[in-house]
């Protein structure tokens, strides 16, 4: 919470109304200690105190103004505040403040490993009580975090990017259904539609690669600096799905499978019969599209190419035999 361009008058007043109770409770506080406690810099506290110096019970009457010992502040960098007892307690949470803090904690509870859940829940209960139980005092905001949002991988990647360090990642390659370990020079994270990608130079493959962050199973920041710290992230929004040889596959999607249109890079779509939609996809791996179709079963079919369609039906039949065959108890 350091001073920024967006620092408004209400921001400053909010800060002061939190700072004064702390100062009054301690009598005398070193400027640097106060700054450390509030996670801000001494300059900002000093600026805020100079404002406080101008305010008081009856503006215009010197005797009743809040007293800030400016000599001690400038000389020994010690804060002494007097004549402000009516500001001894912080202002209660506004609905927006209570909501943002409480919902942050609720989101943490959902995401936390089981061993940390208890302490978060305990903290949450205290805050919910202070905010006034459900509804009253809280605005309606709810977050069901995705796996990516709670990923332990993203902070590691961000830290490595900030330090210009290499990262070792374990990556899940769905088209081969394998895990691979590689060392990469990270260049940037980019959001394309609903997915986040890591753009990097891959030392293992000796080439530029983009990794879907939700498929990075683990990441470790290394001490080694990246080979080319000036390298900039590529524009990830176009072109980079097309570096492999691809086949145009046409799918017919029932409404239940329509999300595919938004999730994958569909090159064309046309309305089909009975509320279906026909879409074209550029596909680099037949295995990948077969897996996707099985996941969508039975709400998607392959219109072309025909041998993909036959392969799909065959693989469904092969899977079915596992249940109908006598080697599986049922």
């Amino acid at each position, binding site marked *: *919470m350091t001073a920024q361009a*967006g620092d408004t*008058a*209400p*921001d400053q*007043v*909010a800060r*002061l*109304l939190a*700072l004064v*109770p*702390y100062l009054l409770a301690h009598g005398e506080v070193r400027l640097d200690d106060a700054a450390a406690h*509030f996670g801000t810099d001494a300059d900002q506290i000093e600026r805020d105190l100079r*404002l406080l110096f*101008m*305010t*008081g*019970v009856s503006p215009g009457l010197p005797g009743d103004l809040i007293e800030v010992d400016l000599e001690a502040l400038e000389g020994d960098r010690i804060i002494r505040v007097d004549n402000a007892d009516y*500001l001894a307690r*912080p*202002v*209660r949470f506004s609905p*927006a403040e209570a909501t*943002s*803090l409480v919902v*942050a*904690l609720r989101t*943490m509870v959902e*995401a936390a490993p089981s061993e*940390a859940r208890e*302490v*978060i829940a305990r*903290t949450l209960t205290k805050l919910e009580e*202070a905010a006034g139980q459900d*509804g009253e005092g809280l605005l*309606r*905001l709810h977050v*069901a*975090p*995705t796996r990516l949002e*709670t990923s332990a991988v993203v*902070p590691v990647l961000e830290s490595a990017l900030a330090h210009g360090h290499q990262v070792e990642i374990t990556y*899940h390659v*769905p088209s081969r*259904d394998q895990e691979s370990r590689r060392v990469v020079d990270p260049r940037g994270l980019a959001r394309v539609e*609903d997915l986040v990608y890591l753009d990097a130079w891959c030392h293992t493959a000796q080439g530029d690669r983009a990794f879907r962050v939700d498929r990075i199973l683990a990441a470790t920041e290394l001490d080694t600096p990246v080979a080319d710290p000036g390298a900039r992230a590529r524009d990830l929004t176009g072109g980079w799905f097309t570096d492999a040889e691809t086949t145009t596959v046409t799918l017919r999607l029932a409404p239940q499978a329509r999300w595919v249109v938004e999730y994958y890079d569909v090159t064309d779509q046309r309305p089909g019969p009975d509320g279906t939609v026909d879409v074209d996809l550029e596909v680099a791996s037949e295995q990948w599209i077969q*897996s996707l179709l*099985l*996941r969508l*079963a*039975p709400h998607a079919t392959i219109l*072309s190419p*025909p041998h993909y369609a*036959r392969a799909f*039906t065959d693989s*469904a039949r092969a899977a*079915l035999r596992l*249940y109908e065959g006598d080697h*599986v108890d*049922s």
Partner: protein
Amino acid sequence: MAQPRAERLMNLHILLLGAKRFIGKDAIRDAIYPEHPRGAAGDEAFERAFERDKDALRQIGAVIEVGSADAFFDDEIGYRIPTEQTSLPEIRFESDEAAVLGLAAQVWQQATLAKATGRALAKLKGQGVEIDPTRLEVVAPAITADEPAFEPLWDAVGKRRQVTFPYQRASETQPTTRKVQPWGLARSSGRWYVVGFDVDRGAERVFRLSRIVGPVRASGKSGAYEVPAGTDVRAVARRLSPSYPSVRAEIRVRQGTGVGLRRRAESVTALDDAPGWDLVVVEGPVHEISDEVLTNGADAVVDGPQSLREDVVARLRAVAASAVPAEEAR
């Protein structure tokens, strides 16, 4: 410069805080707003500034009571800020709980929510709470809100103001203007939704923020409507991403395959009676596990529970039975 307004806000807060009687508007004007002379222009400027300042103090958390300033005639409106209602209740946190609070500060990647969380934490620091997130080895989820519609909608939720926005439904070619009383916001599967009352349709509706294709405009007074009691955006979010009751599933997975299933597995054990196969135990909603199993085609077989087995078999049968529509016209 923000300085004079911050000073004025402080003085207004101090003047009203703990006042035994309601302080009349005229008295407030004399004490805090001497820069606005009496007369039409000055009156209007004062009213505007006073409204804005009250709003700012409320956003900071102050509870401003409105009542009659005169004991005998109730024609003059007065204001006061009752100390008890406006003060933060004393909350004590254990040191591990204080560490949780520090992590909560890292959750919001959206400026307004991050700022509100920071303010709430500053108030706790004002009570003397020592916050040190490094004590806890937990990764805080990172929640973004990149949609431009988020900020104005969140503001409107807090103020209960009606909004209009152009909305593009996936099934329609042109956006339509929607008039909505927003009740709350929810995030599910990485997407933000606003829940509210669609004024033109006279019914509850859910809108996806990424489909709001133009500016969100608030109109009319604050507090223009009540959110129906019992409105639970969490329930709406759950409807958006239905999470069915969890089952504990036992799945046979061919060795060297099924990374997705293995990733979420509670246990993986090699099967003595079926060489080359592992028994993988996972927990989750039926439809999710069913998707995951199907993705693996003939490399994964459900042993139990029966409900999951039936689901997978039914979906495979539907595919296997369907005629191959390969030669169908496009």
